[in-house]
């Protein structure tokens, strides 16, 4: 797979769109997922993912082969989605539809319903975050990127990223508690102890 990626990248650098389409096929799912989690609606996610790949192909010469190709693509997608948020505010989060694959081959309609419910819950939680914080959380929890990678992807310092992550976690926990009727009287300091 890695060798194919290198081969396709080489061909794409020569301007071969068909070779790049193979890379598109390979990375469509992670890029789309990031866009969907960022924008909260399938149509916008499709458009953003398509635009991400168009930009990547147009600026392929800027890609640094020392970095992972997926990381580079995800940084383009994250920044594009952040820009979209900036342009069209406020964004409504559609929770009614979404071409999702079942979480872990969910058995039958009950499993699917559960997965859907969880997805809606997660999407609603994410919708409350600022776009950059949301991108940081998604890249950290879905893609297991390190703080260093995320900071580079979002063009912020690691210190700023840590602050954003902390703020995002606090906001998510508070939103969850509110949603589930758990009373919170936390001060900032006590929360810092509670959340890593």
């Amino acid at each position, binding site marked *: 797979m890695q060798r194919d990626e290198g081969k396709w990248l080489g061909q794409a650098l020569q301007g071969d769109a068909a070779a790049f*389409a193979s890379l598109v096929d390979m990375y469509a799912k992670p890029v789309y997922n990031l866009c969907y989690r960022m924008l909260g609606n399938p149509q916008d996610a499709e458009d953003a993912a398509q635009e991400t790949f168009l930009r990547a192909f147009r600026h392929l010469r800027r890609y640094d082969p020392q970095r992972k190709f997926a990381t580079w693509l995800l940084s383009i997608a994250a920044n594009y989605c952040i820009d979209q948020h900036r342009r069209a505010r406020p964004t409504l989060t559609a929770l009614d539809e979404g071409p999702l694959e079942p979480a872990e081959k969910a058995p039958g309609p009950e499993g699917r319903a559960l997965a859907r419910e969880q997805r809606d819950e997660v999407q609603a939680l994410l919708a409350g975050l600022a776009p950059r914080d949301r991108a940081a959380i998604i890249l950290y929890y879905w893609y297991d990127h390190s703080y260093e990678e995320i900071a580079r992807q979002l063009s912020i310092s690691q210190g700023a990223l840590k602050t954003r992550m902390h703020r995002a976690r606090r906001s998510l926990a508070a939103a969850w508690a509110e949603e589930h009727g758990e009373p919170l009287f936390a001060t900032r300091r006590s929360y810092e102890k509670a959340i890593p």
Partner: protein
Amino acid sequence: MKKPSPKRKHSEAALQQSWQSVETRLRGAAQAAPRRGFANRWLANWQLEEQRIRRRRQRWLLAANGLVWLLFFAPPAWALWNALSQPAATFTAAVAYLAQATAFGWTLLRVLTSVLSATPLPLWVATSASLLGLLAVWAMLFQQGSYKKELG
């Protein structure tokens, strides 16, 4: 050290519990996948994009070309206009001449447009740069000549 109040203890526990629930949800959430045929749709989009890029490039070439030719022809045209418009009697002749010149310019522009849209960018840049260079040299020579005349 101050002992934490029961209210604060409760809130810490609640937050920790909330965060654990959120983290479990985040880590266990499904990956959204696009509709089938994503790569094919991308390929179609790329073809459209390529056409758009080509059209945009042609428009820029045309505009730049127009500017270069304007710069090239403006000084002699201005000189000619001055020479023709001096005596009042030649005014009608000047208008007729301008009409003819416009028609000629229009034909020339159309021919150049078709030639330039088929010319590769590096060649066009080289030609335009040399024309501008020539123009600059001509302007300098012209200026030097008029200066010598003034001295003489």
